[in-house]
């Protein structure tokens, strides 16, 4: 009797817990491999820190190890010192990408649309594309009044190519049939652009922006090593000069995390705008 009561309570509890358990199971399945990867990275880092600390030549850099780094990371986050460099860096990347999009998307649409333009621009664009953005640095510094503007220029010139070419690729994949449909529905050029061309190329444009964000984020840090007194690149350089290696590593961590988040945003945008053209 007593036993039965216990049993029934148990099944009731289990039933009530079922959704929770199922959620936990789904979460575990979704996270197990990413967590494994993160754990692997930490293990490697830990081992590296241990190797540095146990080598007489490199002992001075022992605070690159996870322990001191995470402590410094907590320090800059809790003190709020991390936000100002992030803000400066995002400001530059934001404007740089903004210009790259404003130039790259229309340019890409035209290159994708007019074959002649594609042929005319091929050599000069590939030539320009292969020049490291940082090679423009001296020119940028001369050409622009402020360091901020120079860095934004460097980011824009690095980011414009992937956006341009991804957009052109998207335009070339537009099925003439879709335009015919629009035409038949009485679409004017604005409608065609807004409701057919733009959704048709959106996934390619976002894929280009994703590549561009990666390039921009990479170019940003070395660009901020020079001239400016703000931003994540400056923070790293500053930490090196003051021998605060734990803080330096903490900023490296911040750069990685923000880069990851920017990329994740792009992936979301790509997913949301993606479609499969039917065969």
């Amino acid at each position, binding site marked *: 009797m007593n036993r039965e009561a216990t049993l029934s309570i148990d099944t009731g509890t289990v039933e009530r817990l079922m959704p929770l358990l199922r959620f936990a199971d789904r979460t575990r399945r979704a996270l197990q491999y990413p967590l494994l990867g993160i754990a692997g990275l930490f293990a490697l880092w830990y081992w590296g820190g241990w190797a540095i600390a146990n080598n007489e030549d490199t002992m001075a850099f022992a605070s690159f190890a996870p322990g001191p780094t995470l402590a410094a990371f907590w320090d800059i986050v809790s003190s709020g010192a991390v936000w100002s460099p992030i803000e400066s860096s995002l400001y530059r990347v934001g404007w740089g990408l903004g210009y790259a999009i404003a130039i790259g998307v229309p340019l890409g649409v035209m290159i994708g649309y007019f074959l002649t333009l594609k042929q005319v621009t091929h050599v000069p664009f590939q030539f320009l594309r292969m020049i490291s953005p940082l090679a423009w640095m001296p020119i940028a510094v001369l050409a622009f009044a402020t360091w901020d503007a120079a860095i934004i220029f460097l980011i824009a010139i690095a980011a414009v190519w992937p956006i341009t070419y991804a957009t052109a690729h998207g335009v070339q994949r537009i099925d003439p049939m879709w335009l015919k449909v629009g*035409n038949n529905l009485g679409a004017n050029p604005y409608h065609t652009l807004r409701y057919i061309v733009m959704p048709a190329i959106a996934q390619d444009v976002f894929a280009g922006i994703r590549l561009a964000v990666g390039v921009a984020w990479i170019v940003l840090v070395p660009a901020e090593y020079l001239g400016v007194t703000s931003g994540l690149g400056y923070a790293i350089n500053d930490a090196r000069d003051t021998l605060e290696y734990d803080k330096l590593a903490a900023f490296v961590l911040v750069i990685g995390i923000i880069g990851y988040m920017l990329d994740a945003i792009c992936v979301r945008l790509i997913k949301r705008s993606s479609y499969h053209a039917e065969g």
Partner: protein
Amino acid sequence: MSKGFLEIENLSQRFPQPDSNDLLTVFEGVDVTIDKGEFVCLIGHSGCGKSTILNVLAGLATPTDGNVIMDNKEIKGPSLDQGVIFQNHSLLPWLTARDNVMFAVRARWPNWSKAKRREHAERYLHMVGLDDAMDRKPSQLSGGMRQRVGIARAFAIEPKLLLMDEPFGALDALTRGVIQEELLKIWSETHQTVFMITHDVDEAILLADRVLLMTNGPHAQVAESVKIDIPRPRTRATLHQEEAYYPIRNHLVDFLVEGAKVMSAKAQEAAARGDNPRHTPRIVNPARPEAEPEHSSQPGPRMVRAV
């Protein structure tokens, strides 16, 4: 002559040829009248110019000569008065089935509320049996379902004239049969004026009030207008039990096997002589041969010498 709903007048189309300075005359002198609410099929051999005629009716192409008048207005360009169903279902792949239809509905009635557009689109998707697939994107639909969305979209904008260019050509026989009946159903509910190209004789008999037969090109003509004297509603299963079915079918097949060639040769001779190519199709009712009207004795398409 009384004006019909759709008047195709002395229509000719000539194209420049890549390897010669002469123009290629695809078809010429076509006179056809279509009544409001009529379902007309056009049959002819590949390359005779069927799609070219349809593109002119859609306003997507300009004829070399002649004109098309619908509801007392000349067709000069594409408009929402002419809805087109293309062969390869032309859905926008980033929109769901419902949104594809709503997209067209919005173009037609820009002032409608979203709820009204949605209700309208869903009504037509329901008519083609797609209640459960409205939220799916084209890539998640079978070929037959996509074509049904295309049909729902075309009917939903309630065009004055619905044009279809071999709409079921890419579908397997089983699916084609199902969709033909769905098309019949939606047409019987809306009574649109339909102009459809097909190469399937049975499809034409099932669907059409009238079948226009085209001779081979170049210098193709719309030689005959064959009445499909079979009562509605028609179903595929019972169609061949109709008395009129075999006479009609034989007539259409004979034309495609023999007549189209013979008449084409005559038309080309006439063109070489410089005769006026303008012609109206001979009216034929294979189900009641005795009831054939005046110029039934003439073997070929009737030539009109003076306009």
